């Protein structure tokens, strides 16, 4: 990462979109491709700096990070042509940000509302009269107790654990480094292979870009949509695979 390390001065981050808007606000910018590409590094830095995410939350942050890097890479490499799916991811993120911003702004206004109206509640003139219900017996109450226990927070928590895990940025970058060192030159297609999740391609691509930025790799694309050749920066005449 370039520049001074991003210091986490952000208070309570409630999600990846909230983090993006907070970072953009800190720079007094508006939401745009330019501002999104500018905050990509800080976003990733934040995700890396945070050791613990609630179960499954990290995946949401990493997917958004991947899209941010895509936006950034597009601005750094204008020749880069994105697939329809990638364009769709960017478009989707922009739309979600626009929508989310409305609610985030509205919630701040709601937070300032200080008035409140109270209903009478439990204290009307109602002397209790013992009146059991027709559906009330030990059996129905026993079933009701079991229903409640079935829905209890403990059980719900167990259900939530099976969240799809997505490969981490760090993993992907490490994998790339090793492979480059071995082969010196690979093409992008060779590198990513045919992963089941197309987002892995995105993450892989972004990892390449990150390493280019760090001066470890050289990339070459002969024409739009053709494969990208990746070269180890220290080697002058890398062999080609294709």
């Amino acid at each position, binding site marked *: 990462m370039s520049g001074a390390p991003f210091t986490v001065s952000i208070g309570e981050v409630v999600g990846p979109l909230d983090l993006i808007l907070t970072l953009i606000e800190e720079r007094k910018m508006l939401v745009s491709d330019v501002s999104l590409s500018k905050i990509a590094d800080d976003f990733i830095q934040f995700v890396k700096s945070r050791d613990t995410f609630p179960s499954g939350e990290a995946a949401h942050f990493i997917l958004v990070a991947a899209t941010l890097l895509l936006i950034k890479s597009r601005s750094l490499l204008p020749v880069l042509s994105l697939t329809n799916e990638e364009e769709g991811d960017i478009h989707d993120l922009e739309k979600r940000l626009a929508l989310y911003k409305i609610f985030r702004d509205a919630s701040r206004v709601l937070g300032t509302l200080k008035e409140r109206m*109270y209903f*009478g*509640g*439990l*204290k*009307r*003139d*109602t002397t*209790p*009269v*013992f*009146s*059991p*219900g*027709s*559906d*009330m*017996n*030990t*059996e*129905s*109450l*026993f*079933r*009701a*107790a*079991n*229903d*409640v*226990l079935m*829905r*209890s*927070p*403990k059980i719900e928590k167990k259900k939530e654990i099976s969240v799809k895990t997505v490969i981490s940025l760090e993993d992907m970058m490490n994998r790339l480094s090793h492979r480059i060192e071995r082969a010196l030159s690979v093409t992008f297609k060779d590198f990513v292979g045919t992963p089941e999740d197309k987002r892995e391609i995105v993450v892989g691509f972004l990892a390449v870009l990150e390493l280019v930025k760090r001066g470890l790799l050289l990339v070459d694309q002969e024409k739009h949509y053709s494969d990208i050749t990746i070269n180890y920066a220290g080697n002058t005449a890398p062999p080609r695979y294709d």
Partner: protein
Amino acid sequence: MSLPTNHQQLETSLEALLFYKGEPVKIRDLAASLHASESDIQNALSSLGTALEGRGIRLVREGEYAGLATAPETKSLIDAVRKEELEGPLGKAGLETLAIILYHGPLSKTDIEYIRGVNSSSILRSLLIRGLVEKTEHPSDKRSFLYRGTPELPASLGISSLSDAPDFEKIKAEIQNILDERPAPTEETHE
């Protein structure tokens, strides 16, 4: 008659307070809550009483107490609605709430709502009116209440004690387990 603003404000506050309390309140306590003199309260009460003439809610003054109540001419309506509330099945939400209190009472509204995952004010009110549960003072917090079954409850279920309910110990322990595993409240302010 247009009263000066502060008189009008006092009357508004008085009406809101009596409405919220829902039961007769001592004039002395009203004066204390509203930071006004007892004679100011007496004046505001007279003015409120006049404003409520002919309405569905009336002012009732009895010795050193004042309160709001439904208009006398609506008595048959209110009696009929009350009768309706006392009849009929408890329904799923009612049974669930009663079951939690049966197996794990006395416990607080907060605990009941945590276990059920939904606000239970209205259901608790209905169980109170039906005389199935009652409020008891929280031993360590005088500002809150605990809910427990009424003395009539076991007999109406055909058991001599609540602990004779099916699987009493097991279910009680499971409920306790849920409460024990509750994450600590984050920004809770209890005043």
